[in-house]
């Protein structure tokens, strides 16, 4: 497999254009292609490659963390692939700028740090080009140039790797055939996808619509809350300055039909009053205040509030709306909201009055309601005692359970619940209570919200998990809406028993996620910069370590080279040497100086003893010039001068 020259750079530039990072793309391409022109290459050992691999892993993990924190989970893979050309950059740079034509991928991370785990050497160029092209495609620019450019790039790659048995014209002819086929293929894929999507949408519209298009829960199917019962995720944290509200109301519904509660109330935009919202007229006596932290991933939804809430304020709440029944809609807010809400239980909304809808009973549920009414002889009981009778009925004969296994003998869920199984969860209790009371002339509405029952010692706050989602009834009695909760009071304990073993651990992480979310909100956009700075610093530190290691290796080599070089020292001893050369007895190859001098001395006495002493001084000056004192130099100079004088006299 051969990669044509400049192909890698071209794919990186292509990625840059498609992903909207043109400058980064061009810079990286220049950096990669510069390796063709720059003669500097590093000699990287296996350990260096392992370090670079680990460094890449750190970049990968850092990027992963950044993406998970900043991007919606469902886009995380897409985002990760989009940035993979940059994540893998150290690996390709290591290959292009090293003397090796392959890289060794390995790791020293993990338990056995001393021994690196390495794979066989591999040429990373082609995988890198493939990563760039895939990342460009993932970026989804919808550019019309994508198709022809990819075709061109792949054609270029195949041109140098083509089968040599065929001529070039045939190759180009086939490329054009492929282009036609490819275009037909992509159009076919688009048409097929559109067709399948429309079919799929039709098929699951109900579910799809509810799941993704209804943040304000204008209707609620029977069993919706049941799904939440499996989750122990903390969604609300609450602190109060007084008594803690037991129930946080979120939505109310008036009409029940085909197992679904519907709400027809329209929201009215709430104007801001003094940095907050007036929900009810302020009472003469100040009520209690609760501080609620609520996770709101869609940045809109319904605001949980205690009964009798009259004032709400919070920096992370931007726009609110309200229905005549008092339900508060968050039109715009941050993804995690913290708000202070003031409440007084006795307060009521004057225009929150029942209508005919609050008395409606669906015809298909009437058989069960009528049977219960007859059985309990509710028609004969005065209205004041009705609530107590109904509550007693459910408390005595019904049990709370999330696992209903008995067979269905009646056509509706409610019928089976009331007449046969007599076990169920809050939705069933609330619905049954609402309809039984309606049957007896009391207007009711079905209310959903949360039960506040669990206190976290770790966070020092009340916490509300998803499984604390609850449904109850509000009955209109004596001119006001009264809370009627017929679900057996033991339900939080029953659910607690079924909680996961790992719940405390999850809570712990949830707490840190909360703190991080708050940090993000407080610092607005700066968090990206701060985290990026941390990651850059960390990666730079690791990069420095790799570089430092290579540098220190070079330094040692340079030092070794430096040690071999000696400064030329002007030594007076060279005069003696010249004098000896002049004797005509040449020095043998590799012959030590003193051996040569001794040889000369045998033929012609030359004061060998003096020469020996002077030679010692000369050697000292030669090899340890820095530490040799001036006195030694002077002594040597004087000694040489005396010897030369003697030599003159002896006519050497």
């Amino acid at each position: 497999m051969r990669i044509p020259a400049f192909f890698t750079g071209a794919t990186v530039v292509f990625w840059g254009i498609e992903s909207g990072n043109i400058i980064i793309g061009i810079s990286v391409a220049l950096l990669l292609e510069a390796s063709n022109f720059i003669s500097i290459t590093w000699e990287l050992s296996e350990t260096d490659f392992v370090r670079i691999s680990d460094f890449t892993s750190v970049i990968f993990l850092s990027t992963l963390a950044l993406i998970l924190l900043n991007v919606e989970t469902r886009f995380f893979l897409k985002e990760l692939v989009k940035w993979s050309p940059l994540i893998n950059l150290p690996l390709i740079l290591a290959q292009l700028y090293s003397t090796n034509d392959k890289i060794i991928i390995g790791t020293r991370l993990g338990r056995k740090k001393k021994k690196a785990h390495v794979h066989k050497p591999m040429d990373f160029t082609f995988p890198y080009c493939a990563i760039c092209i895939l990342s460009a495609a993932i970026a989804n620019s919808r550019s019309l140039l994508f198709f022809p450019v990819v075709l061109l790039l792949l054609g270029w790659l195949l041109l140098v790797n083509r089968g040599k048995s065929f001529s070039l014209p045939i190759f180009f002819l086939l490329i054009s055939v492929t282009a036609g086929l490819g275009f037909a293929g992509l159009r076919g894929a688009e048409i097929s996808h559109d067709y399948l999507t429309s079919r799929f949408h039709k098929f699951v519209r109900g579910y799809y619509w509810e799941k993704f298009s209804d943040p304000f829960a204008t209707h609620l199917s029977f069993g919706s809350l049941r799904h939440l019962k499996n989750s122990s995720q903390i969604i609300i944290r609450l602190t109060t300055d007084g008594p803690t509200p037991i129930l946080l109301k979120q939505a109310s519904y008036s009409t029940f039909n085909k197992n679904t509660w519907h709400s027809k109330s329209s929201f009215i935009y709430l104007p801001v009053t003094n940095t907050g919202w007036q929900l009810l007229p302020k009472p003469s006596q100040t009520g209690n205040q609760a501080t609620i932290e609520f996770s709101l991933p869609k940045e809109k939804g319904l605001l949980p509030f205690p009964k009798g809430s009259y004032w709400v304020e919070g920096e992370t709440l931007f726009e609110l709306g309200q229905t005549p029944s008092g339900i508060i809609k968050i039109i715009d807010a941050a993804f995690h909201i913290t708000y202070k809400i003031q409440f007084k239980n006795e307060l009521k909304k004057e225009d929150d009055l029942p209508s005919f809808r609050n008395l409606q009973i669906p015809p298909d549920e009437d058989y069960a309601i009528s049977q219960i009414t007859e059985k309990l002889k509710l028609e004969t009981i005065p209205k004041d005692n009705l609530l107590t009778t109904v509550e007693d009925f459910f408390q005595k004969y019904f049990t709370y359970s999330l696992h209903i296994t008995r067979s269905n003998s009646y056509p509706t869920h409610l019928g089976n619940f009331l007449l046969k199984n007599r076990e169920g969860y809050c939705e069933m209790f609330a619905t049954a209570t609402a309809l039984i009371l309606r049957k007896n002339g009391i207007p009711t509405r079905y209310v959903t919200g949360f039960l506040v029952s669990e206190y976290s010692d770790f966070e020092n706050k009340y916490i509300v998990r998803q499984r604390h989602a609850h449904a109850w009834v509000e009955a209109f009695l004596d001119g006001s809406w009264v809370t009627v909760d017929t679900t057996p009071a033991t339900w939080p304990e029953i659910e607690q028993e079924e909680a996961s073993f790992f719940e405390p651990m999850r809570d712990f992480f949830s707490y840190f996620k909360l703190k991080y979310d708050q940090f993000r909100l407080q610092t607005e956009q700066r968090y990206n910069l701060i985290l990026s700075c941390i990651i850059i610093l960390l990666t730079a530190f690791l990069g420095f370590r790799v570089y430092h290691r290579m540098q220190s290796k070079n330094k040692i080599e340079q030092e070794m080279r430096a040690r071999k070089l000696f400064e030329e020292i002007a030594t007076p001893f060279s005069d003696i040497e010249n004098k000896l050369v002049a004797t005509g007895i040449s020095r043998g190859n590799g012959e030590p100086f003193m051996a040569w001098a001794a040889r000369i001395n045998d033929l012609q006495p030359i004061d060998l003893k003096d020469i020996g002493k002077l030679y010692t001084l000369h050697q000292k000056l030669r090899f340890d010039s820095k530490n040799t004192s001036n006195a030694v130099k002077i002594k040597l100079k004087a000694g040489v001068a005396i010897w030369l004088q003697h030599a003159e006299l002896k006519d050497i």
Partner: protein
Amino acid sequence: MRSSLYKLYKHTEQIKTKVRGKTTPMGRFFLLMTFASTLFGLNTNATMLYQLAAILLSFLTVSYILSLRFSPHISITRNIPLSCSAGEKLSYTLILHNNGNKKEKGFIYREEEHRDLPTVAEFLQTPETYEKKRNIVDRKLKYYRWLWLIERKKKATLPRLEMQTILPGEMLEMDVYLTAEKRGYLHLQGYVIERYDPFGLFRTSVFFRKEKNILVLPKIYSITDLVFDGSRKYHRGGISTAGKYGDSEEFIALREFQAGDSIRHIDWKATARQEKPIIRQYQDEFFSRYGIILDTFTSLSDCPVFEEAVSIAASIVVKQNPGRSVVDLLFAGNTFVSTSTMGKGLAEQNHMLEILASVRTCQGKPFSELTGLVKSHANLLSGAVLIFITLDEQRKELLAYLQALQIPFRALLISSEEKKSQATIDALDLTSCITVISTLRTNQEILLP
């Protein structure tokens, strides 16, 4: 479970072989990219991977269609030598002839060898070297063991190279190389001519069955001379088998004819001079006869230590001067115990190397079989080299037997774990008579004690 794993790996390997035979590395990369882009590009609105997938698929389709038909008009004659040494490059020539009427270019030539996959027994019973160091998942799944066994089954690096362009009717000579990795017979089934499609993604190949066997001799290491204390003492032999080289007996003196002497030995000139029958007195030739006793007893069919032992035995054989001494090779096979002799005209060195090239491990037989063979042969031996691959009481007993007969010997223990083996030697109290040779040091000169 284990045999299911074996089946899975076997089928996967067969599929891999087929895919590799049909695609080029570029083609495989294209297939991989197509798979990835199709898988993640199903939503045409979310990414543009579907466009990439469409292009890649078009390339692969066109490429595949063009790779369906291929009939080369080239005939090839291979001049393959009969033998080579393991680990050494073997060069041979091909004579290519274009029988067709058009120029042929861009073809690939490659040799095809008979390829065995590991058997179930091998897969289950042959642990990978250092397998204990692998994590529990790898140890249980045994995939790395499978890959290791596949690699070990590879007998040679076979030639694969692009052929020159051949004009119609032209005849060309081409040099190719192969490197045999393992000793024994290398069965070349034939050769394959390949052609890449215009995009270079698929390859079409035509197989020509032309079977050839190459005898791959064991690796020969640099080894010091084998000198025995008793090698200067010649042992009486009676080498009648050397008859084809004439009388090898040595003349000592003349003496008077005695009844029963062979008339053939009468020295007629001396008889004429002395006027009475004089015969030539001869002495049987005395020579040294060494035994190389090779330990083949291991439970593994493919044991690296045993391979090293064979190589060391071969190195000793090569080092001997066949004209000076006789060398006996004593070993046990799965169905036989064998003695083979070379030197002094009995057999060629190559003959013994051929035996060593083909020797296999002996499984399911006790070591006493070899001990019996050595005992029956002991009176002929003037020295012995024992090459052990493991050490136990039975081997110790053999050494004691040779010591008792005062037959000088050198005992070598080939081992991949030098320290462990040394500890075993110490435990068996054999420190003075056994030398450990590490398999890791065979690249250096092996010093015999």
